[in-house]
């Protein structure tokens, strides 16, 4: 059975394991996360999915095209701020707070971010890795300070936008968000899940396409790609444009999730956290950003609530270790893990490790 015969063509399962995995993720995330065993509350699942999408958008640019952006928050910001501004102020012909107004805002946001990222990309993709990173940082800081200045009273400066920033079809009650559309009432989580699924499957398709493969080729060896006649600049520009667009989609979801816009959505911490989550998760893999985001957010919630570790069980406690104070500084440990990942296996990350582990386990099991 172990002769060198031709390998079986990949089964249907194999070929579509990414979309299947995504569907499982969306279906399982909230129940798993809200079980008492883990975090015990649901709302975090919304945030997880939204940020997973955002980090995946970032990783399109970094993991799959090889361009490090230290200012991805600005694209997210477009998706958060533009719909909020439109809903608060209304448009000619569309009243503030209306559902159609919101949709118009979303369209406007996506158009604006597409134009912005395209133009920005045209300016900066040719500049070299480090300069590109610094430029994205500088532009994102510039956008941050401009929004902070509250031009025309639109962005609300450091206060952000809260009042009137949600369209009529959103209903909230004690932390539960429900969407009323087309006569249906849908739990917000499923709306987020649906958008997430569509966006991520779209991303997967892009990465599978010739366009996506060319991006990977550019990442691996740009000079070779250019020598083969690929217009690398054009590919990079489109990669950045698409990445920005996807990030803005996540931003739109975040706007509804957070009842408005906050200046920190544009801040350097948001951008920095994104880099951390992506690298931690594994930039070479489609599921890497997802794993990284999950780990980061999980750690943030789980570890900060962690107080005393009883060994072996809570009832029969022989040894109790007060870990609360140490775990408040969970970012230190994840930061250390991040440094280790960067130094030893920068493209692998957690997902890479999980995969190699499961490959080893599978091998061990089959060998039995």
């Amino acid at each position, binding site marked *: 059975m172990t002769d060198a015969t031709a390998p079986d063509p990949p089964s249907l399962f194999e070929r579509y394991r990414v979309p299947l995995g995504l569907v499982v993720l969306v279906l399982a995330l909230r129940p798993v996360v809200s079980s008492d065993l883990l975090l015990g509350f649901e709302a975090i699942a919304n945030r997880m999915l939204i940020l997973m999408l955002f980090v995946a958008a970032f990783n399109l640019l970094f993991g799959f095209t090889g361009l490090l952006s230290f200012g991805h928050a600005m694209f997210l910001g477009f998706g958060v701020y533009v719909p909020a501004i439109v809903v608060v102020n209304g448009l000619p012909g569309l009243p503030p707070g209306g559902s159609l107004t919101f949709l118009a805002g979303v369209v406007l946001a996506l158009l604006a971010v597409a134009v912005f990222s395209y133009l920005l990309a045209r300016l900066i993709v040719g500049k070299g890795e480090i300069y590109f990173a610094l430029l994205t940082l500088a532009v994102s800081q510039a956008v941050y300070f401009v929004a902070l200045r509250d031009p025309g009273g639109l962005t609300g400066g450091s*206060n*952000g936008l*809260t009042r009137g920033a949600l369209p009529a079809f959103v209903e909230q*009650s*004690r932390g539960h968000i429900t969407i009323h559309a087309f006569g249906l009432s849908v739990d917000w989580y499923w709306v987020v899940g649906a958008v997430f699924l569509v966006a991520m499957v779209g991303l997967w398709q892009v990465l599978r396409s010739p366009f996506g493969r060319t991006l990977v080729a550019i990442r691996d060896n740009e000079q070779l790609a250019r020598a083969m006649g690929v217009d690398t600049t054009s590919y990079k520009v489109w990669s950045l444009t698409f990445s920005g667009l996807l990030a803005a989609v996540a931003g739109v979801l975040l706007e509804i999730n957070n009842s408005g816009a*906050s200046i*920190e959505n544009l801040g350097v911490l948001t951008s920095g956290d994104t880099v951390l989550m992506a690298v931690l998760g594994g930039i070479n893999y489609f599921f890497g950003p997802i794993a990284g985001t999950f780990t980061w957010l999980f750690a943030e919630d789980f570890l900060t609530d*962690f107080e005393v570790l009883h060994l072996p069980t809570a009832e029969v406690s022989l040894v109790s270790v007060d870990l609360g104070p140490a775990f408040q500084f969970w970012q230190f440990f994840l930061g250390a893990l991040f440094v280790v990942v960067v130094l030893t296996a920068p493209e692998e990350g957690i997902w890479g490790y999980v995969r190699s582990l499961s490959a080893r386990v599978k091998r061990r*099991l089959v060998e*039995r």
Partner: protein
Amino acid sequence: MSEDERVTRRAFLQYGGATAGTAAAISLAGCSSGDGESDGTGDGGDDGSDGGDGSDGGDGSDGGTTDGGAGLESLSIGMVTSTSGPFAVFGNAAVTGAELAIQDLESEYDVSVDLTTADSQLDPSTALDEARSLVTDDGVDFLMGAVSSAVALKVAGWANQNGVTYFPTGAHSSALTGEACGQYVFRPSASNSMLANTIGAEMAAAADEWYLMYSDYTWGQTAQEAVSTILEDQGKTVVGTEAVPFPSDDYAQYINNAKASGAPAIGVLIAGLDLRKAANQIIAKGIQDRTLAMHQLEDIVYWGLDEESASILDIAGQVWGPGVDGGDDFKQRVADESEMDPYVRHLLGYMSADQGVRAAVRADTSDPDAMRDTLEGHEVDSPIVEMKGGGEMYWRAEDHQLVQPTYTVSSLPTGEMSNDPYKTWFEVEETFAGDDVVRSVADTGCSL
């Protein structure tokens, strides 16, 4: 094929079972612990899975509401405030005040109250996540807290949309009981407009031309608007205003501009401990002999300066301070039980918890609508009245503002500043009744 499958599954169970089991055991242990301190003897940290342990409808639709009429047995309060960062001193003081209130309330009523705190990190979006987590995860009955008005504004907006009662403990921005007012938000402190009215007459009498420096967020912005309005109503001129980013390291630029404006009087509407930096710069630039006014003096800001710097303010308004005649027991308790000298934030924390719990007890439920109905128009008669000097206090129904006395204070001469049993560096000049300083309902811009 099937045999392999069976082997595979068995092997997996053997192999994976042990690991999964240990992981489960550890996480179980981690989650079910941490209920040691039920009445939150405070270190301001997250008290974790306390009272509303998730079993109380933590992920349900209305966390922790007890049956109406069955008698309220326990209450869970969620407090989102700054326990780290530039406002940490203020947030932690409010937590201490809340804890003292809970001690008193538990002995007065037959209700067990617990407090869960969360750190807003001075960021509105973090505060929103924490507030949401407190309501959905910890199942708190109502929310309180916030030092920064920007944080309060964000949480208040969310609370109004979600039907959660919220007391923005230490936020003074007029917007909270103005254009951003809402059904479920009740502000326990004085508003910027009340404080501006308090010092307005004295400011107008002191100088004809004023230059106003203010921290550039909702608190400072509404303060500047209120003060400008007061001055202009009395025929004085505001020669210039300066929006100072908050927080800032360097106040030299802005003090420079104030000095260059030539105005004989400067309004220093700067938030929190940044006021110390501004004060130091004022002295470094040598302009402390101009008339300086601030509408919301908090003693602690000045205790960090030397006594000469602490007395640079000529006109100061205050919500409360150790110099106010009242609440001596409370002041003593704060000094004894925490390691801090009492100041306004302690009282504000006390007031929020006090009023929230009493409202729930009166309504016999923690249902937000019932609590609102019993708060609107309610004339306060709890110990906080005496602590605030005995003046009339009531919750105005039209904007949910707690109408209360305010004070103008001035610093005591250096020799008379007392540090024992707690710091008293300021004395009350004049007391104003709440009704005299609160703006008319029409002016608030609030429609409930």
